[in-house]
C-alpha cells in the first residue's frame, strides 16, 4: 500500500511543479480578462521573463534578482500590450500574436549570442510537515517562489472581488460605457490590469526558469501561455475554477509523464490536446452559467 501512496506523492508533486507556472500566469490572465482584455500575449510575457530571469541571474549571480527581473520584463510586455491595445486601440489579438512572435524571435536570437548558464533559487522544505504521508513531500518541499502563491492567489481574489480597484476593473470589463459615465478611467484600468497580468505571468515564466528548470532554452515555455488562456476559459472566468483548470492541466501532464514509470501507456497526442479540448468543451457546455465579462475583447473608446 505504501507503493500507492508514494506513486500518488510522485504524481502530486510533479503536478504541482507543472501547475505552479500556470497558476502564477493564470492569476494574471484572470485579472486581465475580468478587465475586458482577452490577453493572448501571456506566452510572450512568460517566455520573455524566463529569458530575462536567467540572463539577469547570470549577470548578478543571484537567482532572486533574476526572478525580479522576470517580473519586470513580463510587466514590460504587459505595458506595451496595454499601450497598443488600450491607448491606440490596435486589435488586441493582433497585438498579442505579434508580441508572441517578437519575444520568441528575440529570445531565440539572443540565446544564440551568449552562454546563459544555470541558476536556481533555493529549495525550502518545511520541517515536520514534509514528513506527512502523501501530501508532505508535494506540498512542503518546494522552490521558495511557489509559496508566494499562498499570498498571491488570495491577493488576486481580494483585489478583484473586494478592492475598489477590482470593482472598477470589473466595471470596465463588464460595461465600459457605464463605467466611464461613473468616472472610471476604463482604458487606464485595463492597462493596469495588463501590467498586473504581465508581472504575474512574468513571475510564472521566471519561476519556470530559475525555479524549476534552472536554465533557459529556446521557446522553453512551449505554449504554456496558451494553456493559461484555455484555463481561464475553462474556469468560466472564476478564479477558483481557473486555478482548478490549471491544476487539471498540470496534473494531466504529470500523469502523462509519470504513467510510463508506473507501467501504463497512453496516447500522448490526446493528452497533449486535452487542455484545449477541455476548454472548448467547457465553453460549449457551460456557456449559460459562465460569467464571461460583458465587454471581453471589446475595445472602449468614448463616443456618444
Amino acid at each position, binding site marked *: 500500500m505504501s507503493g500507492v501512496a508514494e506513486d500518488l506523492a510522485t504524481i502530486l508533486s510533479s503536478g504541482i511543479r507543472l501547475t505552479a507556472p500556470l497558476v502564477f500566469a493564470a492569476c494574471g490572465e484572470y485579472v486581465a480578462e475580468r478587465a475586458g482584455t482577452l490577453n493572448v500575449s501571456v506566452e510572450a510575457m512568460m517566455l520573455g521573463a524566463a529569458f530575462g530571469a536567467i540572463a539577469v541571474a547570470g549577470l548578478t549571480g543571484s537567482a532572486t534578482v533574476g526572478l525580479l527581473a522576470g517580473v519586470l520584463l513580463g510587466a514590460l510586455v504587459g505595458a506595451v500590450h496595454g499601450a497598443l491595445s488600450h491607448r491606440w486601440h490596435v486589435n488586441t489579438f493582433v497585438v498579442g500574436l505579434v508580441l508572441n512572435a517578437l519575444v520568441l524571435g528575440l529570445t531565440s536570437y539572443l540565446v544564440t549570442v551568449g552562454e546563459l548558464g544555470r541558476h536556481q533559487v533555493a529549495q525550502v522544505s518545511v520541517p515536520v510537515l514534509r514528513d506527512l504521508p502523501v501530501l508532505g513531500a508535494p506540498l512542503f518541499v518546494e522552490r521558495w517562489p511557489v509559496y508566494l502563491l499562498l499570498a498571491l492567489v488570495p491577493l488576486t481574489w481580494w483585489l478583484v472581488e473586494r478592492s*475598489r480597484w477590482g470593482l*472598477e476593473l470589473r466595471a470596465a470589463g463588464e*460595461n465600459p460605457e*457605464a463605467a*466611464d*459615465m*461613473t*468616472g*472610471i478611467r476604463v482604458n487606464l484600468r485595463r492597462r493596469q490590469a495588463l501590467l498586473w497580468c504581465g508581472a504575474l505571468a512574468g513571475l510564472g515564466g521566471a519561476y519556470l526558469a530559475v525555479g524549476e528548470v534552472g536554465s533557459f532554452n529556446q521557446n522553453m515555455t512551449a505554449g504554456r501561455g496558451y494553456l493559461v488562456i484555455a484555463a481561464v476559459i475553462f474556469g468560466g472566468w472564476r478564479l477558483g475554477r481557473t486555478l482548478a483548470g490549471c491544476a487539471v492541466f498540470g496534473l494531466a501532464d504529470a500523469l502523462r509523464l509519470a504513467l510510463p514509470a508506473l507501467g501504463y501507456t497512453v496516447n500522448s497526442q490526446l493528452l497533449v490536446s486535452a487542455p484545449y479540448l477541455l476548454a472548448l468543451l467547457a465553453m460549449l457546455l457551460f456557456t449559460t452559467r459562465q460569467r464571461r465579462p460583458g465587454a471581453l475583447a471589446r475595445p472602449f473608446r468614448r463616443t456618444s
Partner: protein
Amino acid sequence: MAPEPALRLRGITKRYGAVVACDRVDLTVERGEIHGLLGENGAGKSTLMRILLGLEARDSGTVERDGRAVTVAGPREAAALGIGMVHQHLSLVDPLTVWENVVLGSAGPVRRAAARAEVRAVAERYGLVIDPDARVGTLSAGERQRVELLKCLRRDPAVLIMDEPTSVLTAAESAELFTVLRRVVAAEHRAVVLISHKLTEITTATDRVTVMRAGRVVLRRATAATTEAELAREMVGREVTLGAAVGVLPNATAPAASAASAEALRLAGLTVRPGLDDLSLTVRSGEIVGLYGAEGNGQKTLGDVLSGLTVPDAGTVEVAGAPVDLRRPGALSAAGLGIVPEDRHHAGVVLDLSVAENLVLTRLGDVSGRVFVDRRRLRRRVRALVDEYGITAASLDAPLRSLSGGNQQRVVLARELSGRPRVLVAAQPSRGLDVGAVEDLYARLRRCADDGIAVLVISTEPAEILTLTTRLAVIFRGRIVGELPTARADPERLGLLVGGAA
C-alpha cells in the same frame, strides 16, 4: 449679503463639427430650488450637463460652484465639487450588485458591510426601497432608476442633476420621486436641476425654469409666473396649440381610416421575455396609429421584433393578412414592412458605407443580377431617391457618417419607402430632428397614409402622438393597456394611461 448661487454657468459653448450644441449658455441654480431645464430634442440640455460633469470638454465658458470658478475634469472631480448626476442613459453595470454599483464612482477602500448599511440607510431616508445585494441586471426599469438615484444621493451632492428621470417611471413612481426631491431641497438645502419633456412635471415640481432652443437659452422665469402654453411656445419657437406641441399642421386634416379598409399589420400575442407580454395590435391601410408609452415599456423590444432583430417567444406578425416567418432574415421586409428604427446608428444604417450603399441596403436584389451588383442601375436608383427625398450629401459615395442626423434619417426613410411597403413602422421618428426636419417627416408620413400605407408610430412624445396619429394605443409593461381614437385623447388622459391606469 446674498449667498452665492450653488451653480452658475456662464457663456458655455460647445460645437460638434457644424452643430452648435450649446451656444453661449448661462444658467444659474440657487440653493434650495428645483430648477427645470426644458427644451426639445437636441436642444443641448444633455450636452450642457455632460460638460458640467466633465464628460465633455467645453469650447468656452466658465463654471462656478458657490461663487468659485472651477474646472471639472471628470465625474469624479464633479463629485468632489458636490455635483452629482442621474443619467438619461443609465450608467449601471448589470452583473454587479446594487451596492457595488452605488459605491462604484467613489474613492477609498470598499467596505462591504458599511457600504450595504449605507445603501440601506440612504434608501430609507429617501423612501427608495431596494435590496442592496440584488444584481442590477435582474431589476426592473423603475428599480434601476432608483439605484441610479441612490448612487447619486449617497454622495450627498449639493447640486443634483436629473436628466429625464421620470421617462421610465409610472405616474405614481414619479409623484413619489418628486416628493423625495422636494424634501431633499427643502430640508437639506440642496439645488436640483430637473430636465424633462413633460410640461406638467415642470410646472408642478420646479421653482424656476430655463428653456433652451437650438443650443440657446430662450426663456428664464419663475415657474409660478409662466404657463405650460408659454413654455411650449418658447421651446418650439412659435405659437402652438398644446395638442400639436411640436408645431406642425394640426391634426384635423388627417383622414380617419374607415373601419372597412384592410388590416395591413396584425400583431397577435407577441411575447418576448423580458419585454413584451402578449401584445396584440392591428393597423389598417391608410391609418396612422400611435403606440404611446413611457420609455422602457417594451417599445424597444417591439421595434427589435419588427426589425427582425429579435424572434419572439410567442405570437405572430401578419402583413396584409399573411403570417410572416420571423425566423427567416429579411422576411418582414420581403412581406412589405418598412421600418425606421429607434436607434438608427444601431440598426438603421451602416455608418462606414456610402450614402448610395445605405440607400439600397434592404433592396439589393433590385439593383443586381444573380451575382454582381449592377453599379449603373444602383446609381440611377440612388440618384432618384436622393432627389426625391432632398437628401443633402457631399457625394453619393461619401460615407454616411459624414451626413447630419436629419439627413441620415432621410436616408433611412427613403430606403424603407422605396420598397413600396404596405406597412411603415417609425420608432421615435423625430428624435434628434430639428423642427424643419420634423415637419417634413410628418408630411411624408401623412402622405404615406394617404397612399394607403398603414403607418405605426412608436413614440414617447405625447405631442407627437396627438399631432400625427388617428388612433392611439398605450403600451405599459409590454402589453397594450388601452386604445382610443386620438380625437378623444388629451395630455391628461394620456398621462393617466401611461401610468397603467387604464
